[in-house]
């Protein structure tokens, strides 16, 4: 078996070398023939690479704005029309719930949040009504909101319900002018808060979503909102981040059951699957990209077939030119299979040569795209797509076999005596 493979490799290696010699002796003709295959291979590899890079980028952005592996528990206010006895025992989401939900198996992190309330905010420079959210430790990082100055909230801020605030970037100028806001004071509903950080909006290149509102808000410890401002123990919302290796649906279910039990069956909260939203968005992006891919592959396929037709005609010419040679080889003992192999090797070598040149050209095209994007100030890296490169080579082999078969068979069917008559 090993010996057979070695023989086979050395035979085709020799055939390929002979074919290269033949191809080299018709440089211009070979070059023209190869254009189609070169373009086909170049488009396959550049398109798949580009499409893969766009996909990575879209996935990245969608995961950045969405919350993979996360579900939410949302406080449902007391129901006026409560009929069931259980609903009358309504308690709602509490700070204690937030603390204890960390114990649910499979939950990595828990972030409480109080929805924004419109509050009167003022400094010496300005005074206006601004949405103010109550958030948890690490919540801003969890949502991938970029902290551009200072810091976000730390555990002590939450435990102490400290009067500290992270402000949106767009609010810096009106409230503080050109001065550094970190360490300065803002007054929220008459109470003085220390500014500890500045948050910027999420910047997205591909996904058409507007996150500019983030920069027009303020973020304070949720404990301050619940305890000192609202004067109660209830929070609006809890995000539960599930461990990557945990089974998401069952963790979600046990989170729900856990809370339901604590609340003695009261129907006082809702569960929302944020991960499903992300998955939905990703699926939509996939759909758009795969529609694109169909177009791209059609283009690449057509180009390769055009290349194949070029290959076909040049091989027919080659066969006609080499009738004499076929006759000689037949006289020396070549049978139809050897003759067919001779021309198939030429076809495959041409196609592979074209594919190699195309791969190099496609890679060059990718680099050009990257540098154009960079000249526009965009960070856009396109790694060469390996499956695309393999596909281009495989396509070229297929084209070489498919379009080489008929000319090669025609050569193989030549009657040696007819071929020798040409002498």
């Amino acid at each position, binding site marked *: 078996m090993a010996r057979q493979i070695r023989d086979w490799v050395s035979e085709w290696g020799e055939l390929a070398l002979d074919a290269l*010699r033949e191809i080299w002796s018709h440089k211009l003709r070979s070059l023209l023939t190869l254009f189609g295959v070169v373009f086909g291979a170049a488009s396959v590899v550049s398109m798949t690479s580009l499409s893969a890079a766009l996909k990575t980028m879209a996935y990245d952005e969608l995961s950045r704005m969405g919350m993979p592996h996360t579900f939410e528990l949302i406080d449902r206010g007391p129901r006026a029309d409560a009929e069931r006895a259980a609903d009358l025992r309504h308690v709602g989401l509490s700070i204690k719930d937030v603390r204890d939900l960390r114990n649910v198996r499979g939950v990595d992190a828990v972030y409480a949040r109080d929805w924004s309330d419109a509050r009167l905010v003022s400094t010496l420079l300005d005074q206006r009504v601004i949405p103010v959210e109550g958030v948890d430790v690490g919540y801003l990082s969890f949502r991938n909101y970029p902290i551009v100055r200072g810091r976000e909230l730390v555990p002590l801020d939450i435990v102490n319900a400290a009067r500290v605030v992270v402000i949106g970037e767009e609010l810096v100028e009106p409230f503080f002018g050109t001065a550094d806001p970190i360490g300065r004071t803002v007054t929220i509903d008459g109470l003085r808060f220390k500014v500890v950080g500045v948050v910027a909006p999420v910047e997205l290149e591909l996904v058409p979503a507007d996150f500019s509102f983030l920069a027009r808000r303020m973020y304070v410890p949720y404990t301050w909102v619940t305890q000192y401002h609202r004067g109660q123990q209830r929070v609006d919302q809890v995000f539960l981040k599930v461990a990557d290796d945990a089974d998401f649906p069952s963790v979600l279910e046990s989170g729900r059951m856990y809370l339901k039990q604590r609340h003695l069956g009261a129907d006082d909260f809702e569960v929302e699957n944020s991960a499903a939203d992300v998955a939905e968005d990703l699926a939509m992006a996939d759909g758009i990209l795969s529609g694109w891919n169909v177009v791209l592959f059609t283009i690449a396929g057509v180009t390769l077939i055009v290349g194949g037709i070029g290959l076909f005609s040049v091989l027919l010419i080659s066969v006609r030119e080499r009738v004499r040679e076929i006759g000689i*080889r*037949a*006289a020396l*003992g070549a*049978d139809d299979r050897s003759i067919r192999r001779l021309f198939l090797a030429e076809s495959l070598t041409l196609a592979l040569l074209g594919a190699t040149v195309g791969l190099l050209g496609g890679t060059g095209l990718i680099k050009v795209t990257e540098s154009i994007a960079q000249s526009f100030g965009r960070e856009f890296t396109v790694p060469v797509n390996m499956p695309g490169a393999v596909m281009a080579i495989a396509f070229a082999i297929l084209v070489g076999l498919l379009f080489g078969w008929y000319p090669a068979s025609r050569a193989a069917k030549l009657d040696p*005596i007819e071929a*020798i008559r040409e002498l």
Partner: protein
Amino acid sequence: MSLINAHGITKVYRLGRVDVPALRGVDVQVEQGEYVAITGPSGSGKSTLMHILGCLDSPSDGEYHLDGADISALRGRALARIRNQKVGFVFQTFNLMPRMTIDENVALPLQYRGGFSRRERLKRARALLERLGLGDRIGHRPDELSGGERQRVAVARSLVGEPAMLLVDEPTGNLDSKAGAEVLRTFREVHNAGNTIVMVTHDMHVAAEAQRSIHIADGKIAA
């Protein structure tokens, strides 16, 4: 048993609706180690007979045994195999591969024989070229050689597979008399080394090189 044993060989070519008989019942016997010339005027059927004896073509009718094997019924791949193993051709126009070196040219029949590595094939080819006095031409391409040298390369190629016989068609037809004489001397040496040669020619001086002549006229053996 004779090396070549052909009986009642006929060959009819169809040209449109007309049958053109090229051979009409030819008997040929050649013994192992013989040097035989086939002579006759142009169009008499010499090449056709040579192609049949060389297993390039099959007779329309008749029986042909080569080296003990019945050839008449063989076609295609089986004939190709016999050609490769039993026959070495030398043509009037040399018919070397222009893009290969002369050693690669000489090695070519061994490629179709199978079972030889490229290195082995080239080694044998070079040894043979040395023997025929072409050692200093190894690595050159045919177009760098004189006509006489090219024909001797063709002789080396016909010998490399150690065939049962050489079939030679007008070997001096494209050569000046000096180069022709050189090539004929090579054939004499090859014959003296024990090889069987069947040579087609219309040149009486060339035919005189052989031990005996078979004369063909109009597709038949003439007296």
